[in-house]
């Protein structure tokens, strides 16, 4: 099997100074006027925060890989670099195939528009054309069980409904790689079960899935492999049961 995600030595730095340097043009201009010879406020070492350090792994086609880690471990940052939302400070990622991601409940959904309109909007955000979305429209609606609410504006949807629709759109469109960040938590048990089955089905069709969760049962039932992040570093990477045990023992939670 070929590896579809190849991550090598990724670093990500954020600046966490007390006040971000120059957020208004006015400040920038007065800053220059006050000290024209100082190019920029010198950044102190403490201002830097490495959200990711030397992250290296590869994922083969058809794998479902879980990611665990306590809050602030860098899970979301890692997913964001994989989705090309934010650029790594150093390192390289090679992705083979298109990526669909669901990093938050209801991303890109527009509250004024109806469910139907939002399906097309979201499909377009994921880079699909209208015909592709049309083909999958019934499946998406059926899976999310939102037939009755298709013409209701999105602002009246519950967070569970957001997740169901968001997941369905990501799952049914033709992306080779799917990335989910702790989104199923807003759905009920029945939906979670349904989503797990769907992901297994996608896997058998050759899709690759990365899945962040704090729900150990969900990880256990879904993935053979889990990556454990801690403070921006990969602490462990391997068979699900061992990693979960390791994670719970170290009690990062």
């Amino acid at each position: 099997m070929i590896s579809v995600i190849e991550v090598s030595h990724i670093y990500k730095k954020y600046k966490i100074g007390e006040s971000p340097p120059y957020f208004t043009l006015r400040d920038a201009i007065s800053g220059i006027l006050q000290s024209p010879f100082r190019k920029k406020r010198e950044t102190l070492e403490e201002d830097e925060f490495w959200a990711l350090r030397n992250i290296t792994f590869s994922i083969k086609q058809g794998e479902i890989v879980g990611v665990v880690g306590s809050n602030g471990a860098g899970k979301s940052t890692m997913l964001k670099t994989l989705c090309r939302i934010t650029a790594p400070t150093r390192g390289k990622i090679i992705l083979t195939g298109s990526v669909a991601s669901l990093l938050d409940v209801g991303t890109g959904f527009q509250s004024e528009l109806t469910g139907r309109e939002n399906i097309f909007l979201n499909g377009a955000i994921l880079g699909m054309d209208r015909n592709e979305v049309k083909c999958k429209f019934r499946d998406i609606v059926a899976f999310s069980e939102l037939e009755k609410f298709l013409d209701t504006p999105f602002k009246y949807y519950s967070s569970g409904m957001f997740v169901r629709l968001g997941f369905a759109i990501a799952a049914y469109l033709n992306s080779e790689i799917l990335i989910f960040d702790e989104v199923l938590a807003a759905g009920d048990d029945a939906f979670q079960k349904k989503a797990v089955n769907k992901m297994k089905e996608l896997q058998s069709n050759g899709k690759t899935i990365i899945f962040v969760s704090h729900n150990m049962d969900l990880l256990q039932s879904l993935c053979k492999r889990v990556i454990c992040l801690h403070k921006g570093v990969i602490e462990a990477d391997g068979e699900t049961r061992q990693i979960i045990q390791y994670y719970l023992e170290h009690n990062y939670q």
Partner: protein
Amino acid sequence: MGKKTIREIIIGPKSSYHLIDLHELWQYRELLLVLAWRDIKIRYKQTLLGIAWVVFQPLINMVIFSFFFGKVAKIPSGNLPYPLFVLSGLIFWIFFSNAISNASNSLIINEDMIKKVYFPKMIAPLATILTALLDFAINLVLLAGSLLLFGRIPSMATFVILPICIIVTVITTSGIGLFLSAVNVKYRDVRYILPFFIQLLLFVTPIIYPANMLKKEHLYIIALNPMTGIVTAFRTVIERSGTIDYSLLIIGCISSLMIFFIGLVYFHKTERFFADIV
């Protein structure tokens, strides 16, 4: 299942060498349309006047300007009655100013999307220009109606000049829009300063007065704003008199391409950090 060719995506700390990824833009063309359509839809759902607002803006401007500049100040308007003269300039001006002010806010408005999904960021400002173009089309109908009302038939050259004018305006506003949207992500006060500058720019562009009121050497400086050449050429063909001042149009075209290039380069250099600072 997938008929698409699988592309390898390489992600690294440096910007890609391509200033513009046409393949990717084409792939996301649907998003461009959907975002423009969303803007229009939301605008009409939330505003009382809806579509009437589009024509309200040039109409009110035309009435006010015709009274003060045409009647009171007696600014010459060539062969055209002043209301037609000013309306023909205003529809381009409104296109220009709405496009750049909406584009400059486009990334901030789509903050949520930028932070949570990947898409070519350029789509956001470009979609607002598409929306402005649609409004322009409506205003063009308004102008056509007004011309008929006054019994004026534009010359056949309009069919050549008008598309050129539209294309140059789109290129110019895209360039300014790309630049300002990127600047606006970092410096949030730009959007408060911008209306003031647009206002100033109106007076240094021959919209409410004819270009030939100015000295040649001043005119060439003002022609650096592509809208000068555009509006002047457009008026020449609708008033059916005189010849088009191609020098102004050419200066405008060159300037427009330069503006576009600068906007594109700046956008390309900064877009990788939008998600971190927006």
